[in-house]
């Protein structure tokens, strides 16, 4: 699997994603600066990392969502590429329209930084293929604007079509219907507020995020 990580000014989980991908795939992922309009050849999987791109100016992810790289990212998505947007990366994916909904300020107003229990929702994506449906995993969150919002029709559609990937066991931010992560229509774009790249079994304490990356890697290997 050839992986890449997009880096915006203010991304700060890009190193975490790079470290996780290198550990899991055995290869250095391609680092893609947001200002390039040349998409690296042969990519299978791209991570849009967490952080505070453009200092969260205007709205979280709004400026990054209009970066020069974004049309290339959309073309990659349209060609069936796998994309994982984590935290600020999730906010960016909603701003680009690759995923529906938006992320509002946490209902409790506080920045939330702790391990969260997530429930794996029934769905058919590569990202969750190595988890048992309904099982509980522990993945850290660290965000101020993770309160997932969409209108009722969109929420019903996401639930009805099996596009909810994860829900919070104890909703930390007021997200509608406890949603922690959602999938695109083709199940190849996942956006989530929790950080699986910070739970891959190293010094950071947990390993429940690892299967998300190996799931994609193994799905691509057998495809």
């Amino acid at each position, binding site marked *: 699997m050839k992986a890449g990580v997009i880096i915006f000014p203010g991304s700060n989980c890009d190193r975490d994603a790079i470290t996780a991908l290198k550990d899991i795939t055995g290869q250095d992922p391609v680092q893609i600066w947001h200002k390039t309009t040349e998409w690296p050849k042969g990519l299978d999987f791209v991570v849009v990392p967490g952080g505070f791109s453009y200092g969260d100016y*205007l*709205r979280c992810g*709004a*400026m990054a969502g*209009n970066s020069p790289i974004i049309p290339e990212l959309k073309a990659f998505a349209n060609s069936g590429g796998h994309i994982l947007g984590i935290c600020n990366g999730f906010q960016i994916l*909603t*701003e680009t329209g690759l995923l*529906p*909904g*938006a992320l*509002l*300020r*946490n*209902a*409790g*107003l506080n920045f939330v930084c702790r391990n969260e229990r997530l429930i794996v929702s029934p769905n058919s994506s590569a990202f969750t293929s190595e988890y048992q449906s309904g099982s509980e995993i522990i993945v850290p969150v660290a965000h101020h604007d993770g*309160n997932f*919002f*969409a209108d009722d029709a969109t929420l019903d559609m996401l639930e009805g079509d099996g596009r909810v990937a994860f829900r919070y066991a104890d909703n930390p931010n*007021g997200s509608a219907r406890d949603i922690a992560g959602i999938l695109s229509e083709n199940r190849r774009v996942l956006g989530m507020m929790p950080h699986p790249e910070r739970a891959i079994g190293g010094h950071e304490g947990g390993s429940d995020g690892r299967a998300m990356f190996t799931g994609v890697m193994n799905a691509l290997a057998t495809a």
Partner: protein
Amino acid sequence: MKAIVYVELKNGVLDPQGKAVSETLSRLGFDEVKSARIGKRIELELEDGLAKDAAEARVKEMCESLLANTVIERYQIELADA
């Protein structure tokens, strides 16, 4: 010419900042406050000599592409001679 853009959360979208402000005002004795909603005001200075209709159409485009996220926000545009 100046364009003033007001961006607010749509009705029905939770505004926790507004809620906190409203609660604090109540605590300070401003009992008449029933609720507060927080929005943004963006001031744009535009080139001189633009026709008003054309300017408004351009600013609307700016709102749709960057200034507002219409999933959660609505906007209002005012044009004024600088």
